[in-house]
């Protein structure tokens, strides 16, 4: 493609820089989208004045402001753990971006075990949440941390099962391969299986992001943003806002990649090929994000024990059955 040869470390630096810009920008755009979409779903307008045109700069203002706000570490807190927790939350989320293929050639690292990597890294941020909640020396934070630990473990499984279904259908663990195998997006074909897997994934993703209706760990009206209760300033924005938004964009991308055909056209018509893959990918990611944003203002939140029951008694059996059915489909159809 390009006739420039770079040393490995140079490529690595470039990749790091790209990722470190993409994630915050994605988070800012995601935050803005959340403001606006939620506002319109609620018959409001959302930010209008920051930045002039429809308040485009509102999350940017948030970012700058939080960067230089006073950073409070409570006296009773475990200082080291408290300070490290945001990093422990944020880094795994940034890491998920590494393997998402934005276009055929636009991928930071095409791992052979892409899906496996995603699932492994995705569950790491639980540790960060636990660290944050425990070290805050705040009862609400503690309750939140314990809730989130229990919840994230429970909802990791439906995502894993949905991903297993996809991997079985594609016959590969590489995300590029998964995208390339999807003549029709997996959410549509094979009929039934793909769609149920997609639903499993969506529910799991919402729970993983601790968003309504599965936002018991950070329930604002109940335990006051849970593990993040004591966080302020920069740490807060990394631990909560950037993490949540980054998470959402990442899950949007993963959902688009696994189930909606990634950078491929939505229907396999050659005529549509002139549209670049980046646009397809962004459109599909946006659709996923919209889905997440649409769910958020509509539902009340599920209680902690109901949430666990729902995961263990419903989603996981369905996922297991789905794996069986998929196996049958792959073998016999």
């Amino acid at each position, binding site marked *: 493609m390009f006739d420039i040869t770079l040393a490995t470390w140079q490529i690595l630096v470039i990749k790091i820089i790209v990722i470190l810009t993409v994630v915050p920008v994605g988070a800012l755009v995601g935050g803005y989208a959340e*403001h606006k979409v939620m*506002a319109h779903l*609620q*018959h*409001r*307008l*959302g*930010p*209008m*004045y*920051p*930045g002039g045109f429809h*308040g485009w*700069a*509102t999350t*940017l*203002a*948030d*970012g*700058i*402001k*939080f960067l*230089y*706000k*006073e*950073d*409070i570490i409570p006296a009773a807190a475990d200082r080291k753990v408290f300070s490290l927790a945001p990093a422990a939350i944020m880094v795994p989320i940034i890491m998920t971006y590494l393997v998402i293929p934005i276009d055929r050639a636009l991928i930071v690292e095409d791992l052979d075990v892409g899906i496996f990597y995603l699932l492994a890294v995705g569950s790491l941020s639980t540790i960060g949440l636990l660290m944050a909640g425990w070290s805050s020396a705040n009862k609400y934070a503690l309750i939140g941390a314990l809730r989130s630990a229990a919840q994230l473990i429970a909802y990791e499984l439906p995502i894993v099962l949905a991903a297993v279904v996809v991997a079985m259908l594609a016959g590969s663990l590489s995300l590029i391969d998964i995208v390339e195998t999807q003549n029709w997006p997996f959410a549509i074909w094979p009929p039934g299986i793909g769609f149920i897997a997609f639903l499993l994934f969506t529910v799991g993703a919402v729970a993983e992001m601790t968003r309504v209706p599965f936002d018991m760990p950070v329930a*604002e*009206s109940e335990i*006051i*943003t849970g593990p*993040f*209760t*004591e*966080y*302020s*300033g920069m740490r*807060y924005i990394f631990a909560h806002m950037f993490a949540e938004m980054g998470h959402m964009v990442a899950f949007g991308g993963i959902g688009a990649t696994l189930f909606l055909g990634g950078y491929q056209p939505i229907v396999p018509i050659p005529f549509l090929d002139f549209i670049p893959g980046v646009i397809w990918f962004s459109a599909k990611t946006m659709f996923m994000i919209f889905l997440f944003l649409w769910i958020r203002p509509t539902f009340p939140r599920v209680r902690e024990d109901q949430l666990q029951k729902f995961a263990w008694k419903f989603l996981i059996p369905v996922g297991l059955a789905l794996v069986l059915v998929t196996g049958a489909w792959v073998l016999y159809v």
Partner: protein
Amino acid sequence: MAVIEKVKLPGPASWLLNWSRKYSLWMMQFGLACCGIEMGAAIASKFDIIRFGVIPFPASPRQADLLVVAGTVTDKMAAPIKRVYDQMPEPKYVISMGSCANCGGPYWDSYAVTKGVDQIIPVDVYVPGCPPRPEALLQGVIRLQQKISGENPSEKWLGHTTPIPVIPEPGLAGGV
């Protein structure tokens, strides 16, 4: 953050910091009484305070920039208010909404009511009304934004702000 208080900021940097604070006022809702309901109305779909970048989400004072004390401050409640204010990180602002929070209002002769929230915490903008209409709160927010845009960030950080004459913004100024 020691840099900001020691260095004299160049104009554009001051502007940027002021701008970011102005349009990212996370609002701690301290709905105490009737004014709390009008504050809710200001947040809700007819008036939508989020249009100004005032975000009413944080439930914890640690993430808030703006404390809206809306309603009657009783002597029993004064200590929690002070505490919530102390828990907020600098730079922080306070809007006192309604007659009760301003100076006791209808309960000026009550034995249980604090005559004005400014006795316990510094107040930046006083919104009159009993309760003020939602638009009046919005106007208070606009005035606060005007005030912020005229501030010197390092002074604000140190906590001794000298009042700066406010240049009314043509687009936003709700004419008085």
